[in-house]
């Protein structure tokens, strides 16, 4: 990954040099160099937290870089706010369209312009005609489909004579036909000499639409160049951590499935954000659920847990149907869920350690008054078992380290003695030491015969812990791997939708 420090070139539309960005003490971008020329489409790919969005937000003037420079047509610019980036012809189409829901389409497009209304109106119509789009300008934005909202966003950019368009996962909420028309549009824009940053999670799209590709991982660009120079395998390699020996990751032994009984079964389970999920989890196994952000993994877990409505299908826990039951009932039946975002859903920050551990178990600890002795015993058990570092049970949760908070969150999940636990990103934001402890806890659970559904974007973690893996892609399970097939390479490829249509046995 030698990136040669190139001087800014006059014929580039935009060049960035040595961009660094730090959030708190976390270095998110570590010296990014990137050039885009007129009419190029640069596909920017990378896993979660690779720094793609941060880079784009810096270019858009939403964040300011700590180090490094941005050159537009060879000229150094200082983009301190979005208005400046707009004035320079840069336009970001965010992943989730940012329209004004209570305004009409026309207002949404023209807001912020000082030109005459009639002129803008005819200009919009002529752009739409050029592109062959049909969209009623007097519709209210909240009646638009996601695809239509995206069209409005792009129209906004075009009306501003944008020379550099940033498309952040534009296809993530589009249907197949809509994707086709978007690609036609991008071809058009390409021919007009507009430069495009195209952020995506779908490797197949790269070869379809991009002229260049840049892969980001952990805040650096690991690979870049014209698309023609690479194969899909090259791209996957660029996404993987350096020096990974793909086949030698340490694994536990293969389970004997003839002795295991499925405890949780999903049959054509469909909800908002996922569709036709079929899977079985056995007592005493860890089933990994891999995929990229937005693949529908969390939605599927929270729906099982009764936090969201399902559409169709069945969830069967230990022979009993629990589809669509309330969270409280699902908990009582023996399934518990560790949420993805610890701070948002997982802990009571100003409570103490003991009350956090016991909080899911309160109904069993109390008739009316809380049985304090039982609470203390419960707390002691987990603090010892999980090696949670606290000064005492009454230490306030918010003052603990991320790793210890997470262990307490897991302890709470386990305090209800579940038969099945769903762990959603259990080691996100957890330091290396505590991560090892969390892994040990998961292995121990497995030994005790608990079925574990492990959702993680950290594929190394999935490889290390899982007995079987399913990958989710665009809301569906697109691949299943048995123990001996699990490796980083396969998981990455499947998560980015590469061998969607293939069968690997």
């Amino acid at each position, binding site marked *: 990954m030698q990136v040669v420090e190139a001087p800014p070139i006059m014929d580039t539309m935009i060049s960035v040099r040595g961009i660094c960005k730090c959030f708190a003490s976390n270095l998110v971008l570590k010296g990014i160099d990137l050039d885009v020329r007129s009419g190029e489409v640069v596909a920017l790919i990378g896993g979660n937290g690779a720094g793609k969005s941060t880079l784009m937000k810096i270019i*858009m003037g*939403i964040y300011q870089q700590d180090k490094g420079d941005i050159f537009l047509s060879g000229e150094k610019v200082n983009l301190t*706010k*979005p*208005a400046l980036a*707009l*004035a320079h012809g840069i336009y*970001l189409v*965010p992943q*989730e369209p*940012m*329209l*004004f*829901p*209570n*305004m009409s389409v026309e*207002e949404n497009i*023209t*807001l*912020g*312009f*000082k030109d005459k209304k009639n002129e803008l109106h005819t200009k919009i119509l002529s752009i739409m005609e050029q592109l062959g789009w049909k969209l009623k300008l007097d519709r*209210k934005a*909240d*009646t638009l*489909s*996601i*695809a239509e909202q995206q069209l409005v966003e792009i129209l*906004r950019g075009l009306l501003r004579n944008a020379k550099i368009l940033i498309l952040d996962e534009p296809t993530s*909420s*589009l*249907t*197949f036909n809509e994707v086709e028309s978007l690609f036609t549009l991008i071809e058009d824009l390409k021919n007009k000499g507009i430069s495009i940053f195209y952020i995506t999670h779908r490797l197949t799209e790269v070869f379809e639409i991009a002229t260049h590709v840049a892969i980001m991982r952990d805040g650096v660009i690991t690979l870049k160049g014209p698309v023609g120079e690479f194969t899909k395998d090259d791209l996957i390699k660029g996404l993987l951590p350096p020096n990974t020996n793909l086949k030698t990751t340490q694994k536990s032994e293969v389970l004997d499935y003839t002795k295991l009984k499925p405890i949780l079964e999903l049959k054509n389970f469909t909800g*908002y*954000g*996922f*569709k*036709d999920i079929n899977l079985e989890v056995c007592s005493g196994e860890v089933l990994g659920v891999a995929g990229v952000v*937005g693949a*529908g993994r969390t*939605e599927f877990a929270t729906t099982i847990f009764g936090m969201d409505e399902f559409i169709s299908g069945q969830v069967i826990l230990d022979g009993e149907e629990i589809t669509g039951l309330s969270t409280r009932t699902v908990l009582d039946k023996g399934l518990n869920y560790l949420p993805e975002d610890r701070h948002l859903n997982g802990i009571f920050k100003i409570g103490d350690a003991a009350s956090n551990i016991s909080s899911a178990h309160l109904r069993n600890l109390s008739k009316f008054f809380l049985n304090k002795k039982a609470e203390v015993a419960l707390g002691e058990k987990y603090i010892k078992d999980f090696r949670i570092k606290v000064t005492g049970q009454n230490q306030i949760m918010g003052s603990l380290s991320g790793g210890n908070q997470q262990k307490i969150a897991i302890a709470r999940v386990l305090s209800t003695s579940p038969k099945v636990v769903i762990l959603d990103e259990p080691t996100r934001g957890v330091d290396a030491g505590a991560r090892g402890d969390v892994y040990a806890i998961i292995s121990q659970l497995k030994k005790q015969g608990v079925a574990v559904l492990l959702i993680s974007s950290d594929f190394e973690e999935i490889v290390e812990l899982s007995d*079987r893996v399913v990958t989710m*892609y*665009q*809301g*569906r*399970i*697109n*691949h*299943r*791997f*048995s123990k001996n*097939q699990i490796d980083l390479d396969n998981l990455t490829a499947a998560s980015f939708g590469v*061998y*969607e*249509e*293939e*069968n*690997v*046995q």
Partner: protein
Amino acid sequence: MKTLKNALKAREISSLIFLITIFLLVGAINPNFLQIKNLFLIFNGSIVYVLLAVGIAFVIISGEIDVSIGATLGLSAAVSATLLRDGNSWIVAVIAALIVGATVGLINGIGVTILKVPSIIMTLGINGVVRGLSYVYTNGKWVENVPYAFKSISQATMLNSLTYFFSGALVVVFIVHMLLNKTGRGRYFAAVGDNQCGAQLIGIPVDSTKIKAFIICGIFAAIAGVIYVSRVGFVTPMAGNGYEMKAIAACVLGGISLTGGLGTVVGAAIGAVIMSSISRVLVFLQFSSDYDNTITGILLIIIVVADALIQRRVTENARRERLSARTLSDKGGYNNA
């Protein structure tokens, strides 16, 4: 769903219908209510609330709230009343009041945008400060002896019995409505309240738009204060106390969404007429007008809750639609290991 959407589109119209319905109902019980004289009394009496509601509409449409307008009205009324009492020209009094209102608005705006204090807390604090200043400024005494010439302006009428003040307010509402809805700058307020991040992304200055909204709100409260002096003729240290609730309720009743981005000042004005008519309605129905504030509060809560329920449904549906769009519509490759 379609009728619901149509109803939402014409939010002012539904408040107007509400207004007419109330008047007709009360008129059916007590025909005296519908006498022209009484109706004019109601319209003329609503002017202070109309001005307050129009001002606070800017703040609410921008997605914030201002509960200090009652106190701002009180202080600017006290200031202008003392200046008039001491023989200054009405121009001086009006300018002084406007300065008071604009300053309070500026402080509120800076607190909310730059210091990032939630607007309900910021303006609640300022409400206390300004109310306190009213007491300090007047030594806790009433300001009386406002010149008759100034008081009589509020009595001057045109077209039979419509006061100049009320006709003037109608013109102001119309002009402000045009500025707010038909100009690019005017739409900034709604844009900021509708989707703050989106507004930022297309280069709308979010902070200065909000500060402007608070200043406009303060200025309208000050104008309302001057009119209050002319109508009432004296100012107590508690003048305007509780008016903020009436003004907020007026906005909500007029179809302005408390989450921002939606509504018009015409709606706010209609809401204000309804609000100020409540006490007269009670009298004509032979209830004690002591129920006035209670009924205002209940109305406010009912409308806000109904609005919130609709809003929640809309956002939940949008979220689900977004999630569903993400899933593959055709069957992907399945492979059972």
